[in-house]
């Protein structure tokens, strides 16, 4: 066990966990930030996507010990009022079906648009390929990313 002071959604949070614990489980079990989902545990599905220093990473495969003073943002901290352009576009296109994959999809999309505010269809597909949606909402995800891109 070891103590970590983590910067999550702009707040410092203290946890006492095994150094190998993936960030995913620190968020979900220890900090009650359950918007970040568990899908595969091996960086294959994207359900657990969060931002670390602005970059989309798979929190299931990111041990808490390597975070150090990097800034973590989860779906709960993407915007204060749930009005990030990507979240708004998601609601406009009524993207979710079961909704389970969607926080991961939104986090990946938000980091794509932060880097590349005007992605082409191919760039969207490439960036989003690590996020599985079992319900098959991909065409709406693409449309929502384009809408969000226009409002940036």
């Amino acid at each position, binding site marked *: 066990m070891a103590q970590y002071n983590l910067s999550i959604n702009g707040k410092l949070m203290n946890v006492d*966990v095994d150094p190998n614990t993936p960030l995913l489980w620190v968020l979900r079990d220890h900090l009650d930030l359950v918007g970040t989902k568990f899908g595969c545990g091996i960086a294959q599905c994207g359900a657990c996507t969060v931002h670390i220093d602005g970059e989309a990473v798979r929190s299931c495969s990111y041990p808490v010990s390597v975070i150090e003073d990097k800034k973590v943002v989860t779906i709960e901290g993407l915007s204060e009022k749930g009005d990030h352009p990507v979240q708004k576009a998601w609601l406009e296109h009524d993207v979710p079906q079961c909704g389970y994959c969607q926080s991961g999809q939104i986090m990946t999309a938000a980091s794509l648009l932060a880097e590349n505010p005007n992605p082409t269809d191919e760039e969207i597909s490439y960036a989003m390929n690590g996020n599985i949606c079992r319900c098959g909402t991909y065409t709406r995800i693409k449309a929502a990313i384009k809408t969000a891109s226009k409002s940036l």
Partner: protein
Amino acid sequence: MTLIDKKLNRRSFLKVSTLAGGGMMLSFSWLAGCKPTAEEVLTMPDEWFTINSYIKIGENGAVTLFNPNPEFGQNVKTSLPMILADELDVDWKNVFVEQADFYPERFERQFTGGSNSVRSSWKPLRTAGATARYMLINAAAQTWNVPAGEITTSTGMLEHKSSGKKAGYGELASLAGTLEAPDPEAVKLKENADFKIIGNSKKNVDGAKIVTGKPLFALDHKVEGMKYAAIVHPPAFGMKLKSFDKSSVTSLPGIQDAFEVKVFKDDYGRNFFDTTTFPEIIAIVGNSTWEVMQAKKKLNVEWEKAPDSTFPMAGRGGQNMDIKVPGGLENSAAHKEKMAEYITKPGNVQRKDGDPEGAFKKAARVLERTYTAPFLAHNTMEPMNAFADVKGDKAVIYGPTQAPESIMNALSSSLGLPKENIQINLARMGGGFGRRAYSHHLVEAALISQKIQAPVKMVYSREDDMSAGVYRPTYSATYRAALDENNNLLALHIKAGGIPESPLHANRFPAGAIDNYLAEGWQIESNITIGAFRAPRSNFIAGAEQSFLDELAEEMGKDPIEFRLELLKRAETNPVGERNDYDPKRYAGVLELVREKSNWSSVPNGISRGVSAYFCHNSYVAEVIDVSIKDNQPVVENVFAAVDCGIVVNPDAAANMGEGAIVDGIGNAFYGEMAFENGVPTKTNFDKYRMIRHSEAPKKIEVHFVESTEDPTGLGEPLFPPVFAALGNSLYKATGKRLYDQPFQPQIMQMENLRM
């Protein structure tokens, strides 16, 4: 206005009236009420008045509607309340929706499956909404001392025109809640033309919570003092637990205990949905998910081969039967050989019209093709899990289940508690696709909690989930057509089977359209467990049938849509046999609509196009898929779907679900496959089990609904089965090769120099 159908389930109505009269307390869901839109005008009232099981109204006119059915992404939590709201005549803006927990005494059929939520709730929910409206009218009539027949309603307002009296629903709700519900015969339902909410798209009522990551799923649930549990199950079908060494994990950090869990009691008569692959598993309990998952890897455990076994099952008519589970470690290669053998043997005849044998003897030519598809894993994004809190003689379970009523018997038997002491609360599910109709995970969590006498959240790893069975079966179907020298179709013969069930629907199209017709089924026993998977059986047989009809049309020199329409015309004007279970006119209607919407005869440059149509869950769907070839790989460009599912309650959400079914079909057709080596599933996570990803989804999907005044029919499943053949037929056009075996991708990889 029309008088409601007298055939309406009287029980459901009486239930509503007893409740209204008795003023029974309603459940308060664990999930707080949620507002449908950002522009709501009414806030939470100070007091709620219960009108019936589905409806409560606040003093300020706000309305809470309960969604009775489990939500797994099909959006019933929005569409079912829309039906209530329309008949109640309220403004959707003022509606809060709550998920009802499992209360069989208050709600009918709390089950998600068979694309049945809207179709079986349509009349009961309309009646519940209309009944509540009548009770509000009667309350106004009493208060104002005017005849009820002179009172009108309009979006949450009551009015008596001649006296100028007006009131909001909220003002009369407290009185309305105490009134006797009217006789169902006296309750008039709206004319279709008067619908204000039904047919007008409403956004997902949980949308805002989903996009902000609020806790909605059982896996997100946590209470004070809750423990975490992981399970360890045998590595192969045909294996069982021999022994394990608890001390190999109990000294690990954060681990409290490890013990065996026996899911069903020996003498328990299982019901249809009580499928579990591994009735004995090991539970590891500890302080966090990560710790219990790590401990799984350290557990010292020995497995042994399971002998042939049987378990008791309660048949639908109440009679008990013994279900045999053969021992042995099965292999996919052996499955294939065995299936090939069965194709050559006579099957069980399920339908015979005319003289098929004679027709085949006379035939100038016979076209014979065999189609196969593998086992499939459901792979819901949220793995199986459940929260349970069993203390003393009370149990509370919160879990993702499509079928709470079915699992209640097992919970009661396994926990040794009466059903009244067990509360099942319904979580939003991270996907279901049939898998969560089999809810053994709820029993497992409950038994773990009972043993440790503390609340627990049990979660499967992805590997546990993917290798625990309840798969879509593997299937095979052989189609033979007899043609005369002028290319007329004389006879059709289908022989279809699978492990462990046959996919045959003997009375579906093209039965009824062909004079000489023979349909036979067969099945092979197995210890690999199966379960419903989006459009069971149809999800295979549609692909086989519609691929064969495509090839047959080509043999006969006919346009594939024209050919199907000719057969449907025959079934309509001069049907063969009497047991045809489809309406040829509605079937033809979707083919005509898809022909128009896809602009069928003018295929764009560089595009190859295929068509398919199917009927299931009382709905008709035709699909056209366009593919192109880029970098020697097929790319799905456009999908056009035409759907006749009667009245569409929530059109944009319906389209969303249709798009999802199409993407699901394309993914499974190209990549879906579960295989076995010595009983071991060869794929246990998404690194090996290929799922369709963003870049492989169609560029564009159009879902067109036939305008209809018919009552709603199924929707979640019917768009799935036609995908396989529409894709296969378009790939044939693109590559010059017919694909007979799913998944397609391995065969495409072997093709060189694809056309275009």
